[in-house]
């Protein structure tokens, strides 16, 4: 006969409520670990998915994710000429926030180097990759856009042709993918009035400039959008992503490109380290402290409940001793209850977490490593929390039955 189960049966309501409370507490502890894992995965997801061997960014910056980086478009060609480089692609990345169906919509926009890169590497769950150089967009499902939906960004309308899953930026925003050209058009979009004013100002400057007076045709071209002016620098890229040839000496290529006066180079690991140390580390420590505190609180609550449950049955425990129950039976009664409380709480936490975490605004990733670690912690706090009750129970004298 299992006395722990019998006692729980007799106090089912209290035990159930306590398990529910412990379970929800453990779910939060579990969630904290999951949020941290989610932060790490989100932070490194893009770098991993893009799969570049080297990232070439603006000199002395930690771009393009940790800070703003601007490199000229022709850097792609310069990098391509370096021995050992297989491909070099443009990389444009920025976050925008627009109104969509009356709600704010934050999009982390990534430009694909059309036509080399159509986004075949994206984890599509519906639709297709980009199929034309303009006005098509692949969106992550977290943005809530549907296949075929039209989205007005700037002055242009983009059609959603593909849906991805799990593509989030380091900030947890859903990602969208267009061609580099479209990404830059969206990034540098200016209101019509601003364009008109700029054009007028340019025209005015032209009327007083000797160059324009000598070259009237040049003055006429001043009316074009800035992005179409050959003499005006085109909008810059965020970075150039490089793939190396098999067996190429990564270190040599890195050193060569880094020796140029306008570039810094990071390996994939270096980029990941930048993201984790710069953006996730404080969050990790903060979440870690919360986890420790919540675990401590769960242990205190469990100890209190186990102690109270033990106090409630001191008479029965004395009686058990009187009829000759060995200490291991008493110890087992309390310890099994504590372990059951912890175990059921853990299961509840896991079950509830699986259902609730997908609705959290940030990704919560339940890693096996964290789940096992928490299970061990639960076993430890169950045992520790039962100590108070066990000590109390072992001190009860069987003759207290006669006194009572």
């Amino acid at each position, binding site marked *: 006969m299992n006395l722990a189960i019998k006692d729980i049966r007799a106090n089912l309501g209290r035990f159930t409520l306590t398990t529910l409370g412990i379970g929800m507490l453990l779910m939060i502890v579990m969630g904290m670990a999951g949020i941290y894992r989610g932060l790490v995965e989100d932070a490194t997801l893009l770098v991993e998915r893009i799969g570049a061997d080297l990232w070439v960014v603006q000199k002395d910056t930690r771009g393009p994710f940790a800070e703003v980086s601007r490199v000229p478009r022709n850097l792609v060609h310069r990098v391509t000429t370096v021995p050992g480089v297989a491909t070099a692609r443009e990389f444009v990345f920025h976050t925008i926030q627009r109104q969509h169906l009356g709600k704010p919509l934050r999009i982390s926009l990534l430009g694909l180097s059309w036509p080399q890169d159509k986004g075949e590497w994206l984890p599509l769950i519906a639709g297709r990759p980009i199929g034309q150089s303009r006005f098509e967009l692949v969106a992550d499902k977290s943005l809530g856009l549907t296949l075929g939906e039209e989205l007005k960004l700037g002055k242009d309308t983009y059609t959603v042709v593909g849906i991805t899953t799990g593509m989030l930026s380091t900030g947890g925003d859903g990602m969208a993918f267009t061609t580099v050209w479209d990404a830059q058009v969206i990034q540098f979009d200016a209101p019509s009035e601003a364009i008109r004013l700029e054009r007028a100002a340019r025209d005015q400057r032209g009327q007083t400039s000797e160059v324009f007076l000598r070259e009237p045709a040049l003055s006429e071209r001043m009316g074009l959008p800035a992005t179409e002016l050959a003499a005006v620098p085109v909008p810059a890229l965020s970075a150039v992503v490089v793939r190396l040839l098999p067996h190429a000496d990564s270190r040599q290529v890195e050193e060569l490109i880094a020796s140029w006066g306008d570039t810094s180079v990071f390996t994939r690991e270096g980029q990941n380290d930048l993201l984790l140390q710069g953006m996730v580390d404080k969050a990790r420590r903060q979440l870690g402290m919360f986890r420790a505190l919540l675990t401590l609180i769960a242990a205190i609550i469990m100890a209190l409940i186990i102690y109270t449950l033990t106090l409630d049955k001191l008479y029965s425990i004395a*009686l058990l001793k009187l*009829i*000759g129950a*060995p200490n291991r039976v008493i110890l087992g009664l309390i310890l099994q209850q504590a372990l059951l409380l912890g175990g059921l709480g853990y299961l509840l936490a896991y079950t509830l977490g699986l259902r609730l975490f997908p609705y959290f605004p940030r990704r919560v990733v339940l890693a096996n490593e964290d789940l096992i670690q928490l299970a061990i912690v639960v076993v430890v706090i169950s045992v520790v929390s039962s100590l108070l009750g066990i000590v109390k129970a072992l001190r009860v004298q069987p003759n207290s039955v006669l006194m009572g």
Partner: protein
Amino acid sequence: MAVEMAGEPAIETRDLTKVYGSGNTEVVAMRDANVLVRKGEVVALLGPSGSGKSTFLTAVGLINPPTSGQILIGDQLVMDGPQAQVNLRTFRRTQIGYVFQKSNLITFLNARENVQIAMELDGMPSRDARHRALELLGELGVADRAEHGVSMLSGGQQQRVAVARALANSPSVLLADEPTAALDSRLGRQVMELFRRVARDHGAGVIVVTHDQRTLDVFDAVYEMEDGRIHAQPADIGPPKNS
């Protein structure tokens, strides 16, 4: 003073003394108590509050060790002064049954489980213990309440369940401390007659601490305790009432 009766000895105390405190605060709760109860006998222990009845009962129940004297159960020396000669908890489990004044059942178990647990603690397989528990409850007329919780049983039913548990491991000694105090006179007599039957059918030596003068005719012998000393009431001493 030792009082002998026919049959094998179930329990014997020799010069049992219990002293609480020391020096100026010393209190002699029991002095030179000599009692011999044979198998099949039911004896009563009377006395006013504070006379040492509970001290005697807890000493022979191996719960509260005496300061000096000896306790023998069956032929075996169990306590020599305060020194235990056996594993007391095991001995209590196998040789002694207890029934007390107030409900002494484990509250989170039902009637059947309260009896069954005593046997399981003694190593009996769960299925056998369950079967035996139901048999005992049947013998005591409470089989129909076997699956009821303790709080669902009347005082008399609780006492019967307690007796069933006390008998579960076929103890050689049954100790009862005012078992009828919480019962009306009819139920009180029923319980006392139950002890009588238990002693006869199970061959146990039964010691009952009681204030209830109305049921004294049930006992083979009546002892009286006063200021820690035990006296026999000669008029009540006789052969075991096995009929």
